[in-house]
C-alpha cells in the first residue's frame, strides 16, 4: 500500500499521460483528415458536431462496437497478440520522454521535486526508447504473418526490410547529439540546450536532425515510407485482416509513435521547453509547457504535411537511401563531432561540416544513367 501512497504523483502522471496519448491519437486522426482535406481543396469531416469535432467520438465508438472478426485460417493467438505488442511498445517508450518543464538533472533536489516525466533521470533514456520502440515492428510483422493473407504477409516482410534500413541511421544520427551534451539522459540533453537559443542542437547538428527526421518517418510507417501499409498495392498491408479494436490498437500505436518521435525531435534538437524570451530556465512552468507542446505540434503537423506531399518510396529505394547515403553521412557527422570535441574546436565548425556533407553527397551521388528514349516524331 505504502508504495502506491508514496508514489502518487508518478501514478497520477502515468494515468494522465496514458489517457492523453489515447485521446491525442483520436484527435490526430481528426487533424490528419482535416489537413488532408484542406490540401485537396475539400473541407473534411464537418457533419458530426461543431466543425466535425465529435467525429473523434464517432470513430472511437465505431471501433469499439464493430464485430470482432478473426479470419478462419488466421493464427488466433498471434493475431490477437500482435496489435497489443505494437500498442504497448509505443506507449511504453513514452515513459522516459519529458513532456513538460523539467529541472536541472545534475542537482540533488531534482529527484525529490516533481518533474514532467514518468520515469525521472533514466540515464539510458535514448537507448530505452530505441530498444522499446523498435519492438512495435514485431507487432506489424506478427500481425502480417498471423493474418494468413498474402497482402498482409508482404506488408509484414516489407516492414522487416524497412527496419533494417532505418534503424542504423536513426541510432547513428543522434550519437553526435549525445556526445555534445555528454549524456544519453533525455532530461540532461534538454537541460544542456536550455541556456539560450544558440545552444539548441539544431544549429550544430542540422544534418543529424535531417537524418533523424527522415528515419523517424520510416519508423512511424508514415508516408513517404509507409511501405507495410500501402493501401494502393497491399490494400492496407499488415492490417488488411484487422478490424474493430485491434485495428484501433495499431492506429493508436502508430499515432503514439508519431507523438513520441515529435517529442524526441524537439528534445534532441530544438531545446525542449526552452524558447527565447518566453520560456527561459527561470520562467513559469506553464509557459515552458506551452512552448513545448506548441513545438511538438508543429512537428506533428509537419509529419502530416509531408504525408500528403511526397510520393512513396519503393523498399529497395529506401534501403539504398539508408545504407548508401544516410549511414555514410551519419558516420562522417559523428567523426566530425568527435574531432571537434576532442580538440576543443569551436562548435560552429560542425554547422559547416553538416552543410559540406550534404552538398558533397549531392555531388557524389551517381549521375543517372543516360537514358535515351526513342519516340516517334
Amino acid at each position, binding site marked *: 500500500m505504502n508504495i502506491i501512497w508514496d508514489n502518487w504523483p508518478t501514478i497520477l502522471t502515468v494515468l494522465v499521460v496514458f489517457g492523453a496519448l489515447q485521446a491525442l491519437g483520436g484527435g490526430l486522426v481528426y487533424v490528419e483528415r482535416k489537413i488532408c482535406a484542406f*490540401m485537396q*481543396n*475539400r473541407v473534411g469531416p464537418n457533419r458530426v458536431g461543431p466543425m466535425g469535432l465529435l467525429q473523434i467520438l464517432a470513430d472511437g465508438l465505431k471501433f469499439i462496437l464493430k464485430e470482432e472478426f478473426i479470419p478462419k485460417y488466421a493464427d488466433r493467438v498471434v493475431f490477437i497478440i500482435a496489435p497489443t505488442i505494437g500498442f504497448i511498445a509505443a506507449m511504453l517508450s513514452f515513459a522516459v520522454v519529458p513532456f513538460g518543464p523539467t529541472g536541472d538533472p545534475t542537482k540533488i533536489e531534482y529527484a525529490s521535486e516533481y518533474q514532467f516525466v514518468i520515469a525521472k533521470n533514466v540515464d539510458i533514456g535514448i537507448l530505452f526508447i530505441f530498444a522499446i520502440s523498435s519492438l512495435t515492428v514485431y507487432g506489424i510483422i506478427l500481425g502480417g504473418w498471423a493474418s494468413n493473407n498474402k497482402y498482409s504477409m508482404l506488408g509484414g516482410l516489407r516492414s522487416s526490410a524497412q527496419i533494417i534500413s532505418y534503424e542504423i541511421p536513426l541510432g547513428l544520427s543522434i550519437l553526435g547529439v549525445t556526445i555534445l551534451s555528454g549524456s544519453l539522459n533525455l532530461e540532461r540533453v534538454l537541460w544542456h540546450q536550455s541556456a539560450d537559443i544558440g545552444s539548441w542542437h539544431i544549429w550544430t547538428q542540422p544534418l543529424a536532425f535531417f537524418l533523424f527526421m527522415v528515419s523517424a518517418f520510416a519508423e512511424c510507417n508514415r508516408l513517404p515510407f509507409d511501405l507495410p501499409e500501402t493501401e494502393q498495392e497491399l490494400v492496407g498491408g499488415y492490417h488488411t485482416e484487422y478490424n474493430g479494436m485491434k485495428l484501433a490498437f495499431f492506429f493508436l500505436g502508430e499515432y503514439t509513435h508519431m507523438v513520441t518521435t515529435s517529442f524526441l525531435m524537439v528534445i534532441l534538437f530544438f531545446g525542449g521547453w526552452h524558447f527565447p524570451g518566453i520560456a527561459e530556465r527561470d520562467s513559469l512552468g506553464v509557459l515552458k509547457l506551452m512552448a513545448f507542446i506548441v513545438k511538438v505540434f508543429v512537428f506533428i503537423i509537419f509529419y502530416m504535411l509531408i504525408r500528403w506531399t511526397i510520393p512513396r518510396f519503393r523498399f529497395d529505394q529506401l534501403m539504398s537511401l539508408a545504407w548508401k547515403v544516410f549511414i555514410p553521412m551519419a558516420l562522417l557527422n559523428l567523426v566530425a563531432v568527435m574531432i571537434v570535441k576532442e580538440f576543443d574546436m569551436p562548435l560552429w565548425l560542425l554547422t559547416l561540416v553538416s552543410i559540406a556533407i*550534404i552538398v558533397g553527397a549531392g555531388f557524389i551521388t551517381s549521375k543517372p544513367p543516360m537514358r535515351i528514349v526513342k519516340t*516517334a516524331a
Partner: protein
Amino acid sequence: MPIAETDVRWVKAPTLGLLDRLYIPAIMQGLGTTIKHVFQPKVTQQFPEVRPDLPANYRGLHRLNRDADGRVKCVACFMCSTACPARCIDIVAAPAPPEWKDREKYPEMFVIDELRCIYCGMCEQACPCDAIELTSLFDLTGLSREEMMFDKEKLLSVFDETVKMGKDPIRTQAGVLSCASEPSI
C-alpha cells in the same frame, strides 16, 4: 513497317543539377504547393443543403411529356423500348380513345424500371414525338424494388413537377408540335 529513321526523334533524359540531386529544394517546392492548397477556396459542395447546379442536358429520372391538352404525348410506337440497351421499358399499347383524333394508339401501361436503367438517354433520342425525356432529377430513392418501377402516372407526375421548375424545358427535336400532336386532316 518499321519507323523510318528520319521520323525518330531522340530524347535525352534531363541531367540533374546539384540542387536537383539534393532533392531538398524539390521537396520544399512540393510542400509549398500543398500548403498553398490549404489556403485556397474549397470546392466541396455541402450536398443536401446546397443543390448542385446541373446542366440542362443532365440525364436523370425520366418523365413522360404531356401535349397541349394535357394528354400523354406518347403514341406507343415502341421505339424507345427497342432502342433501350438495358431493356427496362415495358409498354402495353391500346387503341386510342375515339375522341383522340390525332393518333391510333396510346400506351395503356408504360413502366420504366429505374433500377435497371443505365441513364444513357437512348430512349429520349429514339422517340419520334419527344414524349420521353430525361430530367435533371438525380436523387431518387426507394425502399423497395417495386417502388422503383415508375409507371405511367408516376412518369407523368414527374413531368408536372419538372416542367414548372424551368430547369428542364421540353427539348423538342421534331418541331413545336411533334408528330403525335399534329392535327389530323
